[in-house]
């Protein structure tokens, strides 16, 4: 194998001469692997890249570091073929999108080839703290609402696997990514044995057996799903029934009872209270108040009463909706 650089220019007579660029032989295979920091996205991509390289392909694998391990989005572009230019996969060019987390899978869907792209996604939901920022009563969880069925309708070939549960059942939740490798392996032309060899290099020695099981489980799951579609809905995807319950939070403060102890101000989860110029508690940011009653409960002077107006009506309505 020769050096892959196309650096064939030569300098003669003090002048650089032009050369022909290497013609593009064949489009590379684009596999986008995504997930959340800590899920093992990089391991999946390394296993794939290593396998591809061993087959003599040029491989580029590009990923983000830094913030990634802090619960952020992690993605890894793996491109392989006789000639690979861009280290990243252009939007709409991914042949396969492997997602280790449901919302992450949805985030990267636009990168998938519209007509032929294969979407393999764990239904695991990792809800980031940001999805829970609005904590007021009735506020919805800001997590993706699309269901696997909706995705399937939009994508050429889509698989929603509960890989995390499958891995748990095998005894190691962390092997979920390998279940997905198993699924991925069915979409590429490498022999299963080569996959397993590659895998064994990248998982901890002690977990090789369970990871190989996970790999085989992922493979057989897909094969079965192809002939006999499995309905796996993302858990609680429609659990937004209680959203938008119309509570109106109201704080009733008895100023002459307040002794300015500051407990409520300091311990309010939303920091929406303060002591005013007279050192009496007041609701400074009513829009943030969630009506959690902590101030009421912890006020030694009984100076605060929290009212969730129309709560009874709202709860009754919500309960009925849940039943329905």
């Amino acid at each position, binding site marked *: *194998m020769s*050096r892959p*650089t196309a*650096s064939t*220019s030569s*300098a003669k007579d*003090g*002048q*650089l*001469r*032009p050369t*022909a*660029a290497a013609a593009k032989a064949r489009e590379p295979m684009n596999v986008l692997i995504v997930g*959340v920091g800590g899920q093992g996205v990089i391991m999946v991509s390394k296993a794939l890249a*290593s396998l591809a*390289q061993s087959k003599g392909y*040029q*491989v580029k694998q*590009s*990923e*983000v*570091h*830094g913030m990634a*391990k*802090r*619960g*952020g989005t992690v993605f890894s572009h793996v491109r392989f073929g006789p000639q*690979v*230019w*861009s*280290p990243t996969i*252009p*939007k*709409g060019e991914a042949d396969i999108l492997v997602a280790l987390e449901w919302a992450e899978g949805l*985030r990267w*869907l636009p990168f998938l080839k519209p007509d032929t792209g294969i979407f393999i996604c764990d239904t695991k939901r*990792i*809800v*980031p703290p*940001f*999805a*829970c920022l609005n*904590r007021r*009563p009735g*506020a919805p*969880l800001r997590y*993706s609402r699309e269901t696997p069925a909706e995705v399937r309708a*939009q994508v050429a070939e889509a698989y929603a696997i509960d890989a995390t549960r499958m891995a748990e059942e095998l005894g190691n*939740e962390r092997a979920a990514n390998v279940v997905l490798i198993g699924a991925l392996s069915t979409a590429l032309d490498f022999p299963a044995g080569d996959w397993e060899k590659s895998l064994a290099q990248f998982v901890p020695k002690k977990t090789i057996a369970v990871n190989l099981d996970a790999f085989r489980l992922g493979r057989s799951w897909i094969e079965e799903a192809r002939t006999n579609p499995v309905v796996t809905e993302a858990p609680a995807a429609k*659990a937004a029934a209680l959203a938008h319950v119309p*509570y109106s939070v109201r704080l009733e403060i008895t100023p002459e009872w307040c002794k300015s102890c500051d407990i409520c101000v*300091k*311990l309010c*989860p*939303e920091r929406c209270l303060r002591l005013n110029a007279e050192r009496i508690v007041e609701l400074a940011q009513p829009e943030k108040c*969630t*009506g*959690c*009653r902590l101030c009421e409960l912890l006020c030694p002077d009984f100076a605060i009463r929290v009212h969730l107006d129309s*709560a009874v009506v709202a709860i009754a309505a919500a309960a009925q909706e849940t039943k329905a």
Partner: protein
Amino acid sequence: MHAVPETVELSKRPDQDLRPLTGNEAIARGAWEAGVRVAAAYPGTPSTEIMESLAGYPAEDLHAQWSTNEKVALDVAIGASFAGSRAFASMKHVGLNVAADAFMSQAYIGVNGGLVLAVCDDPGIHSSQNEQDTRIYGQFATVPVLEPSDAQEALDLTKLAFDLSEQFDTMVIVRGTTRLSHTRSPVAIGPRTEHPTRGFLENPAKNVMIPAHARRRHVAVIEREAKLKAYLETAPINRWETGDASFGVITAGTCYPYVREVLPNASVLKLGASWPLPDDLLRRYCASVERVFVVEELEPVIEKELRALGIKVEGKQFFPREGEFSPEILRAGFERAGVLEPRAQRAGWALEPLARPPVLCAGCPHTSSFMAVRASGARVAGDIGCYTLACLDPLRGLDTTVSMGSSIGNAIGMAMAGDTKPVMATIGDSTFLHAGIPGLINAVYNQANITVLLLDNHITAMTGGQEHPGTGKTLRGEEAPKVDYEALVRAIGVKWVRSVDSYDLAQMYQTLREAIAYRGVSVIISNRPCVLDPVKIKGPALAIVNEQCNACQSCMNLGCPALTWGKDTFEGRHKVKIDQSLCIGCTLCAQVCTVDCIKPAATVAQ
């Protein structure tokens, strides 16, 4: 994130072989193959792994160190060059700002042993405070800038940089970007070439920058620029790839593969060095095509030069000045420029992507520090580090963040300007050692009424867990003296110093309040190791007793990624659940839980 073992193995097998390396690993490999003797760096994404990777090579080959900051790192490298050895420093783009003082002078002095500076830019600002373009520094200091486009070139150009450095008596910058640093591709590696030390060259007129010497050196620098330009006219690192003559593209570095991706058959002039530029080559190339496009990430450095040469070029009107390039951005630009047929727009599926910004880790000791900071009601000057993330909801604990070590100076200024709130600076241990100490000295000297919260998590956490003078270990993991912060701070003249365990939330609250109440400079050292480095902490996970949770959201207020909402609600608020795979059992949530419903998972029926 530490040394890459297979690279070490490779060094024992000098026969050419292909290894999958990232750009950073390739730069390190290149430096090693070039026979570098001394290497220094301060960690900074995306450059960090260069030095970590170098430290994976045998200690007898080279000395590699973490320096306290980038200026120190460059000074160390300059010193080694003075002594006649090949020397190397690496840093991120903003690190060069810190090192700029030395950098600008060294540009005049030149080198004895070859001196190469790897600087990694961060277009797109994946993990930085700006996306400044390092090529301008090269132009500014008249220092050549080589730009690899992939890992192979990273190796090759780094090696070349050492040769050029010695050949032209100049420091050489190898400029990378995040994409280069973190893309892995096969690289052909080679053996190390030893370059015995040249010995110190006693030449005060060159080595001692007093005005009289410097004036003469400036002339030499300008002459050097001309020589470099001449070299680059024919240097094989520039590539002229022919194609359709209707238009041509001039590009460099990581833009090149994108250009090739989008325009596989176009005429391209790929520059190996983006500074200085070979004027003749550019003129000849531009003349060979009808339209000339310059594709360069960030600033129009090349484009402006071409315009200065009187050549009509197109560039930034089609390709943005900000952000990281991608094939689709280039495609869109070329489509707008009319050289590519617009692709049919597919009706996209309207997906609202989930916001998933990086957050402090589960169990991060900064969490409780910033809970207390938030409760203190202070005006807070933040600094660079993981804790910068505390500016986001729900902690919302920072008001400003400027640059490494700025927090204390910023706080002094705010206090002197009479901010009505108490003023506080929060600064990590590594950042404090990097650039915080002069600020603190200044605070004491000028009697500022500020509180400095020194967030000592025993590691340089943000960049992935690097050692520093406060950790008691070197880059290579050897024992080293450890900075005693409390003694240091007292020696500076701070009278009010207290150490506190930031996992003790109540103590944290109280200490912070008392520190603020103190008139003058008060320093709190919050003392808790990072949960990821140097060892990953994983205690027994906690769980919520669901039926007891009253959804008060006190724990959600920590912003801990292990905490999220369960399916149940109470009074319309979501009850909380704990992701046990993420929880490390730090108990901070239990400490704020108002119903005591957070218990070790083992005792809670799920």
